[in-house]
């Protein structure tokens, strides 16, 4: 028999507990607030770190995660007050990016953000990037060089990575989430689903001398258009730093933004991107 009441209280205490009024939608942990209100919110299993801490020295801290169904750009920002940008020695960004348009090759441009604004130090950089490609094996080229402007202009990128855009149909891939639902996912398009860019990069967060460094996994994806399996680039890693020019932008990076080279603000609105990005930071030691 159920006893109906809103509060229960120990006879020997002065702290009544207030019962929740609704049932959770699935099994969840029960919380008690500092005023005794019992609830079952979705926040009990929040994972805030990728690796553990040693005393006060943290390992990789998860700073931001986004999942975009379709948009001009994708952006992750470090808004942490516990580990602000000035405390991060290097970042690691994980992503799966799909650009849905016409099955052709294109590029995804990346820019660091300072105070949330694109601020690449592209001029005067040098470096190298390596990758495995179909047919040629291990290859290398000079490091990417982008622009050094401020703001959302298309040329304000620091490095880029090739991508084959999706050209799927019946229906077109208009959102990221529909790709994971068998009732709504596109059914048409030869070689559909082989586009996109996956992987991660690391970024050294010096005040002026900042840039991509070697990554645990690198990135994986196709670069060319069409339906023949050419020009895959696997395990692509970048290293580039300012060399002969003073850094145009100084101060610590607090995030990253990416967009299709033909899209983004002011670009062709058909060149959208979708996917997820995660931003991790490795704080400098507290000692």
């Amino acid at each position: 028999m159920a006893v109906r009441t809103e509060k229960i209280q120990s006879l020997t205490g002065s702290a009544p507990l207030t019962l929740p009024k609704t049932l959770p939608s699935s099994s969840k942990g029960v919380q008690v607030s500092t005023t005794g209100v019992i609830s079952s919110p979705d926040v009990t299993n929040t994972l805030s770190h990728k690796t553990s801490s040693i005393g006060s020295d943290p390992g990789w801290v998860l700073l931001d995660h986004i999942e975009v169904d379709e948009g001009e750009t994708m952006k992750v920002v470090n808004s942490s007050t516990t580990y602000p940008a000035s405390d991060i020695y290097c970042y690691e960004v994980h992503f799966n990016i799909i650009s849905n348009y016409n099955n052709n090759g294109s590029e995804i441009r990346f820019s660091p953000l300072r105070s949330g604004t694109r601020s690449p130090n592209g001029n005067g950089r040098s470096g190298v990037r390596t990758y495995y490609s179909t047919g040629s094996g291990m290859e290398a080229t000079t490091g990417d060089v982008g622009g050094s402007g401020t703001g959302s202009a298309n040329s304000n990128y620091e490095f880029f990575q090739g991508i084959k855009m999706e050209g799927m149909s019946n229906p077109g891939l208009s959102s990221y989430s529909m790709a994971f639902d068998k009732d709504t996912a596109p059914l048409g398009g030869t070689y559909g689903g082989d586009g996109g860019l996956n992987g991660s990069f690391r970024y050294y967060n010096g005040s002026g001398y900042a840039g991509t460094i070697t990554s645990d996994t690198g990135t994986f994806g196709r670069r060319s258009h069409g339906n023949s399996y050419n020009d895959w680039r696997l395990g692509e890693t970048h290293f580039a730093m300012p060399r002969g020019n003073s850094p145009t932008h100084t101060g610590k990076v607090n995030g990253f933004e990416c967009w299709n080279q033909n899209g983004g603000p002011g670009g062709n609105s058909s060149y959208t991107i979708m996917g997820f990005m995660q931003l991790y930071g490795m704080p400098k030691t507290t000692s």
Partner: protein
Amino acid sequence: MASLIKTNKISTPGGEEFTLPTTYPGTTSSLTSTSGGQLGYGSLGFSSDVLSSDNKVINTNAGTFFESSVQSGSLVDKARIKNDSTATAVTLDIVPSLRTGQVAANVQFVTLHFCGVCFSDSGFRPTIQLLDSDNNNVISNSNANQAMRSYHNSGGSFSNQSKDPNVAYMPLLYNESYRPTGASAASELFNQTALRNGTAMMNGYVSMMIISSDANSDTDTSGSRFGAGGLILSKNNFAFRYESSYSSSSSNSIIGSYGKYVSKQQTLNNPTKIKFYTHTGTTVMNEGLFWTETIMNPGKTT
């Protein structure tokens, strides 16, 4: 007015009794219960500590369970050099705090990460050594070493080496540098904003798979058969700009990889520390962040 029931205990129709707490929690907490039914307040969700579980791992060969707990990758040690002092070596622990049932020999996969590493002069030859619990070198000349190194420079040129270096350490590709003006934390490259032509810097990681200290030594201690003794596999990746003097035009950058295994026809002690140092000269490091991450395997006991 909200209805309120005052009672010391509440119970289910089956008779299980739960005793109510008498205070509020200091912060938002999960509701917990002891085996005696005393309700209370516990920690909420995951902490920043490693994810761990006491669930047993099935050992299908033996049809039993490993006794040790399962543990995710964990940060083990971390060190930073800030240009206000120098270091000839950085030695970091690779054995995490052991949980119930774990032993140091459970250490299976270790990665040393390094970022923004600068050296005070040319002549630094980045090198890895593993130390056992008595701080003795694990890698020695008597080990059977095999190595493969390759790298690409900024012009796309490729160099590949596959050989037995026959040395008592794991050399990485070399790096040269020069110290920023002013030996203080204020002049640390990490915080510099002014032009410094062609600044050198090293980044990367070294991953070690510790196979066993004494693999299969009972059956074959004399031959060169794989698995005759202790075995460690290593895979390294790094990227850096190397410069021994100021340059506004040089593009001396490298991305390289380096694989190696170390085996021995006798016991190869389990490492407990990893050391990053130079194998020639006395050149020192003046800057950089180093940290180790480890994954434990409860099935690895030797």
